[in-house]
Structure formats: structure tokens, C-alpha cells
């Protein structure tokens, strides 16, 4: 088949695009009275609730205002952020490792990964955190060296691992199990043809994973990971089980012994958590947009404008 076979055959009337611009339709929009009525009811209920909340003395807004930016509270909020960040970083690293193990051909690696997931997803994170708190009771010291032969170093678990690090370990191991499944789903979502194309170009396994597979897997991995991050921020409130009590929830709870009213302190904790999760949601929006590159045929507003300009320049209003 040569290019001459592709001769364009169009009726003469359609050959030149019509110059007169058409009357674009301006129809009277359909009314939706039911939607309006329900909206009015809901807004009314909301206003009533807000008035109630503002006037109810149990909320104690004065104390709320007094302690919202209390240094102890804001420090605890920073510790919550630190816990979240550290636990999540370790969880992602371990999760990727577990996912790759799960997808490998080696049966031992596969089984170990499976068993890890089975245990850490199958038990409550609160219980796991209590266990980590008891680490020093179970293993008094850790010896580094050749087992039963020669030890180079002895680590006293009770002093080496502070409650903070036990909390980080507990949170990240639990989270790694979930991250492993998310990463595995992401890697599995990449078409086999992508590996073959990269292979055929002479790329190594590592290059293929880093440059071809993982960037595409990210589109599947990022949204649930964002959810996990937001979830982790809130799960840090459970580290009181270790026990570790310098993060946001434990700190505000302890402070209520000073205010004699736990309710404003709970509201303060909620405010800080909401602030952080809101920031994270905005960040997630931009991340998702970044990794969605090339995923859709839909043209961006900028691309559409460029095409429209090109259309105007060529002088034909009727091209596709």
C-alpha cells in the first residue's frame, strides 16, 4: 500500500469550511427545586449546630484559644509529624523491598514476604505497639557477632531503644505490610510489554525498574500511599501503647489534668490533625497530577489553546 492510496475524497460542499459562525445554542437550563429545598434544610441545621457549639459552655472555647498555640501543644504536634515522617519513610523502603521479594522467583524470599504480611496485617497495630514496648523484657540484650562463637558488641535493648524509636519501629513495620501490597499492585499494573520494550533496547533490570516501571507504577501507588500517610498521622495517637506520650494526642490528654476539662483539649488535637491532613491532601493533589503525565488523551487547557491558535492562524475555522 503506498501513500497514494490514501487519497482524500470529500464532497465538494465540505471541502471549504464555512466562514459564517453558527448561532451557538443558549437553552433555558432545567430547574431542580428538590435540590434547592434539601440544601436549605441542611444549611439551616448546620447553622443551628454552629450556634449551639458557640454557646455551649462544655466546649470551653476560652481554654481552646488559650492552649491552641501553647508551646507544649505545638511541640507535641511537631513530634507527631516527626513520628509520621520517620515511620512512613521506613515503611516505604521496607514495603518496596517486601514487594520485590514477593514478586521474585525465589520461593524463600516469597514466603518470608508473605509471612511478614500475614503477621503484621493480621494483628492490631495497638497490640503490636504494646509488644514493642515490652521488647526489653523479651530481649534484654542483642549480641552482634557470630552466633554461639564470638560476639563483638552487646546492645542493651532497654537503654539503646528509647520509647520514641520503639514507636517508630512499631508503626513502620505495621505500615510496611500495607505498603508492600500497594507497591506490588503498582508494579503488577505495568504492562508486560513495557519490560520487553526496555529489555529489547538493551536496558538492565535495574534501569528498567527505575526508569520505566516505577514511574508508571507510581500512578497506581501514589493515591493509596497518600491515604496511608494521612492514616499514619492519625495512627501515631496509638503510640501511647508503647508507652510514649509526647505526641499530640497523649500530650493534649495529659494537659487536660491542668484545665480540668478534656473537651477543649480534644478539640485542639482535632484542629492540629485537621490542619496537617489538609496540607497533605493538597500535596497529594499535586503529586497525583505529576504522575498522571501521559496517562490520558485529554489535552490540557494550555494544549487546547495552542491548537486553537494554530487553527486561527491557518485561517480555517472548521478543522477538527
Amino acid at each position, binding site marked *: *500500500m*503506498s*501513500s497514494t*492510496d*490514501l487519497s482524500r475524497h470529500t464532497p465538494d460542499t465540505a471541502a471549504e469550511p464555512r466562514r459564517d459562525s453558527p448561532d451557538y445554542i443558549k437553552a433555558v437550563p432545567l430547574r431542580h427545586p428538590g435540590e434547592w429545598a434539601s440544601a436549605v434544610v441542611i444549611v439551616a441545621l448546620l447553622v443551628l449546630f454552629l450556634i449551639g457549639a458557640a454557646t455551649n459552655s462544655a466546649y470551653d472555647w476560652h481554654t481552646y484559644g488559650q492552649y491552641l498555640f501553647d508551646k507544649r501543644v505545638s511541640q507535641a504536634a511537631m513530634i507527631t509529624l516527626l513520628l509520621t515522617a520517620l515511620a512512613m519513610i521506613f515503611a516505604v523502603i521496607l514495603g518496596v523491598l517486601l514487594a520485590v521479594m514477593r514478586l521474585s522467583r525465589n520461593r524463600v524470599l516469597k514466603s518470608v514476604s508473605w509471612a511478614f504480611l500475614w503477621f503484621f496485617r493480621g494483628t492490631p497495630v495497638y497490640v503490636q505497639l504494646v509488644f514493642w514496648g515490652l521488647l526489653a523484657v523479651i530481649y534484654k540484650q542483642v549480641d552482634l557477632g557470630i552466633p554461639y562463637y564470638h560476639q563483638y558488641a552487646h546492645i542493651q535493648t532497654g537503654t539503646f531503644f528509647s520509647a520514641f524509636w520503639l514507636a517508630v519501629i512499631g508503626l513502620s513495620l505495621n505500615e510496611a505490610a500495607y505498603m508492600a501490597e500497594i507497591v506490588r499492585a503498582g508494579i503488577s499494573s505495568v*504492562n508486560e*510489554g*513495557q519490560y*520487553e*520494550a*526496555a*529489555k*529489547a*533496547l*538493551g*536496558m*538492565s*533490570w535495574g*534501569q528498567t525498574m527505575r*526508569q*520505566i516501571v516505577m*514511574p*508508571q507504577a507510581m*500512578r497506581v501507588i501514589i493515591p493509596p500511599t497518600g491515604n496511608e500517610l494521612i492514616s499514619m498521622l492519625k495512627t501515631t495517637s496509638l503510640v501511647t501503647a508503647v508507652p510514649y506520650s509526647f505526641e499530640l494526642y497523649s500530650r493534649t490528654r495529659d494537659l487536660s489534668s491542668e484545665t480540668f476539662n478534656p473537651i477543649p483539649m480534644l478539640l485542639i488535637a482535632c484542629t492540629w490533625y485537621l490542619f496537617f491532613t489538609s496540607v497533605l491532601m493538597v500535596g497529594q493533589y499535586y503529586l497525583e497530577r505529576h*504522575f498522571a*503525565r*501521559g*496517562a*490520558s*488523551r485529554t*489535552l490540557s487547557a494550555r494544549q487546547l489553546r495552542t491548537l486553537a491558535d494554530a487553527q486561527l492562524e491557518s485561517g480555517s475555522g472548521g478543522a477538527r
Partner: protein
Amino acid sequence: MSAATNTATEPVVRAVNVHKRFGALTVLRGIDLTVQPGQVTCLVGPSGSGKTTFLRCINHLEQVSAGRLYVDGTLVGYAERNGKLHELHPRDAAKQRRHIGMVFQHFNLFPHMTVLGNIVRAPMTVKKMPKDEAIEKARVLLRQVGLADKETAYPAQLSGGQQQRIAIARALAMDPKLMLFDEPTSALDPELVGEVLDVMRELAQGGMTMVVVTHEMGFAREVGDELVFMDEGVVVESGDPREVLANPQQQRTKAFLSKVL
């Protein structure tokens, strides 16, 4: 066929009694085939005849089960030492593939990269080519396939024919000695087939050695130096495409051609 008669040159592809088994299923049952430099070999045959599997053996996407396959005189996929075959380290297999370009039925462009990104990726990663040089080369290739204005587009924004032409440019960016085409036009709308075949024809005229699995008998007749008809894992008949198409000798060839021509 003039190149094939010149025995002094080392053939680009030499297959000797190649077998391929997938578990209990034998797909190739002894393929002998030679492709000389600059020659265009078209593999045709019914689906399931093993032509795609054979093509994939040439760049070691599939491992040969028996027989020997040489590209440029080098054994593919194995290293022969003291009469024993050793599996090749993935690193060395990757080195062999660098010199063999491949174009797939479903294009397999990298969807997260622009057209330009698709083309410069392998030269930059595998050959460590400087970015400027890679981009310059990519632009030359884009002009060659007639898509110079598409370098910032993403694959999903292109038609099938355009995507396949980009895929050809991507393979050419590695300066291959041999190009493998696996049904390059089978996934295309009929009106887009021509533009891809045009690029392939120009490539053949430029002296590229090509092995093409195809159903386009017109292309095989016009561009091919040799036509190989395969069925049930063996080469049934091969020769000058015009001869084979006009005057098939084997019953199975006749039966197949009567259905597709």
C-alpha cells in the same frame, strides 16, 4: 537475493535447527534460516505457526531450547565454553540486544515520557550518550519518520500509526545492525498501515537488515528479499517473495495464500 549468494560475508542472522519448547508445548521444531546484511526477510504464516516466537528468539526475549542461533557470528543467549553451554548473565544478554532493534505489534512506547523522551532514553541510559547529542539524533530520526512536530507529545495523544513510527525511531536511536518487526501493522486501523510501511520501505532501501513478521503480502512482495512461510514450527517454503507468492510449491503454502491474498 543477490546478497544471499555472496557467501564471503558473515550472515547477520544464522539459525541452525532452532527448537523452542514452552513446557510440554513445542513451538519451533528445527528452524534453519540465514539473513545476509542488507537483506529483508519476511516471515509469514498462520497464527500459532511460531513466527513471532522465532523473532523473539533472535534477541533472546525467548531462550532457544535446542539448536544454535547466531547474530553477527555471536551465539545468542548462551556462552559456549569447552563444549558446554552456559546461560548468559542478564548483563551480557542486554549487551547483545543493544545491536538489535525491535518493533512490537502494540508499540509498547513508554507512556510516561514524551516522544522525545522515548527516543533519547535508551541511548542515554544504555550507551551513556550525552543529552544534547541524544536529542540531536532523536530530531534527525523524527524527521526521518515524518513526525518532527510531535516531539513534546505523549504517546497517548498520537494515532496508532504515529505511535508505531515513533517506536521505529526509538529502536533506530540505538544504531541497530538488525531490526526485528513483530507484526508492526496488525494493531493499526487500515488507513494508518500505509504510513508505517512507507517508513519501513525507506529503511529497507537505506540498507537496513530486517526480519519482519507480517501479514502484508504486498509489502513482502515489494520490499522483501526473501519470504519464509512457516507453519507448525517449521519452515515450509522459502524463496524470492514474488516467486513464492505467485507460484507456491507446497500445498500448505497454497492453502494459506488462498486465504490471505
